[in-house]
């Protein structure tokens, strides 16, 4: 078991956003979380990443309580991709990726850190643009850079919050294929929050549907049907299959 939550509850002030979540995620699984805006997807991911301290319930990462893992140790296990990223200073792609090694470094990076950075740049295919300022990259290249940064952390778990937002279709597929490849090749556990149900069906091993801070449904492709879509998104949909590929066509209820 890579990630396990038990009776997890979470409040923003008085506002309860996560209700009694008990979820198990296996090692090497590619899991997608789906649900409306405000259903608690991002909050759940942030809790797993250790960015939001929880007070009720339990989260374990490889059978170890998340709260007992130090910030430094956590960074060596979990790679988290935040939803928004607005850098001010034009650091180069290489320098941004190098920061992934912070948990290993006291003052200056060592040769090993530079090697890991080079490997990550190669894995994601960014050697060509490694000297370019991050601030001048396109949306897709930025996302690739942040993924390379996470890979340089050498994590065993990836938590990605809407990694394909703001990207064109080609880049959406590139990023998702890349994630899938990394997950399978390196036996990493990947949890991704997505809005696009079709994209989720193309890549995920398992699905978690969130509704109002609760787990509405979990399972494989078979749980994605008209009823689930209507309950979760309050919208009608045609679910079908063409050339072996499942699809969902949503439409406004009549």
């Amino acid at each position, binding site marked *: 078991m890579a990630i396990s939550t038990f009776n997890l509850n979470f409040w923003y002030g008085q506002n309860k956003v996560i209700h009694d979540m008990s979820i198990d995620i296996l090692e090497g699984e590619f899991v997608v979380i789906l649900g409306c805006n405000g259903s608690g997807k991002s909050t759940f991911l942030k809790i797993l*990443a*250790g*960015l939001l301290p929880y007070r009720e319930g339990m989260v374990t990462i490889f059978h170890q309580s998340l709260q007992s893992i130090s*910030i*430094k*140790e*956590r*960074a*060596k296990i*979990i*790679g*988290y991709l*935040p939803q928004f*990223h*607005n*850098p*001010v*200073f*034009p*650091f*180069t792609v290489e*320098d*941004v990726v*190098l*920061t*992934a*090694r*912070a*948990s290993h*470094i*006291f*003052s*200056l*990076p060592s040769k090993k850190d530079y090697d890991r950075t080079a490997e990550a740049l190669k894995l994601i295919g960014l050697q060509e643009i490694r000297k370019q*300022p991050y*601030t001048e990259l396109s949306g897709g290249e930025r996302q690739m850079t942040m993924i390379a*940064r*996470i890979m340089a*952390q050498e994590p065993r778990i990836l938590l990605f919050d809407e990694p394909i937002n703001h990207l064109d279709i080609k880049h959406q597929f590139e990023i998702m294929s890349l994630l899938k490849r990394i997950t399978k090749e390196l036996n990493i556990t990947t949890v991704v929050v997505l809005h696009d149900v079709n994209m989720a069906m193309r890549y995920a091993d398992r699905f978690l549907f969130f509704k109002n801070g609760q787990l509405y449904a979990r399972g494989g492709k078979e749980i994605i049907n008209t009823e689930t879509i209507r309950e979760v998104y309050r919208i009608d949909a045609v679910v079908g299959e063409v050339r072996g590929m499942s699809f969902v066509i949503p439409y406004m209820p009549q």
Partner: protein
Amino acid sequence: MFVGSSDIAAPKETIRWLFCRHSNGSSNTNNDMLYTIIVDVRLPRILLAFAVGGSLAIAGNSIQNVLRTPLVDSFILGISSGAAFGAALSLALLNDFSVQPVAFLFGMLAVALTYFLSLTRRGVSLLSLILAGIIVSGFFTSLLAFVQYVTDPFKLQSIVHWMIGNLHYATWSKVRSCIIPIIIGTAWLLIMRWRMNVIALGDEESLAVGLNPTVERLLIIIPAALVSSSTVSVAGIIPMVGLIIPHFVRLVFGVDNRRNQPLSFVIGGSFLLFVDTLSRSITDVEMPVGIFTTIIGGPVFVYLLKSGRMREENL
């Protein structure tokens, strides 16, 4: 070392003194005077100018990275107004000897106040840090105005003189009193120089790779405050150096702080040394260097701000 307002130590004499002082056994009054001017007046001033300029620049670069904005320097945290109030207080109420330590203490006190004001349950946000700095600066500025208002004119003059940063009264004792905190703070900031690259990317981005931004911020603000307060205590408020030099370095060499921290110190030190040399040789009357840094730095800054390059790359 060769220029100054005294003819006794004109360049030619200085060179002769430097090369002949061992071979020339006879001593006369002129030589003693020369020795005093060079060793006791000019040398400490050169060292002080370099250390002060370097400190302000490295602290400025550090604070710009911590606050993730190129538009601030270390004085944003309330150091200058706190120290100015401390100095005014001791000039008005105590004696001249207490000015340095009191200014230093109030500078550090102001930063501590800023930090604790901005502290919330969820850590320190950048906006609250900047706002708290503005509030603390305002608070000490009004206290300073009060001291100026009630103090007698003669003391008022020395307060005003002190506040316009200057290096006129550079002595070995001043060098000695500020050099230890400057060395400690600078070394500390140099150790932190790569970690500043991480912090500059963002709070969540730092936390995700294992650095607690709240802790790291403090680890950078403390040494930055230490060196800035030290400079204010010996040289008053020298504006613009901490703002412009990091900008200049970033513009020319890029944004990597592994390079920029040491470069900021060296270039900041050289800049202030150059400006101070100008200020003491351009006219018969020595002008306070604080006036010159603004006169020279202001237009440079406006130029940088207006030129497209900085807007694209650094804002």
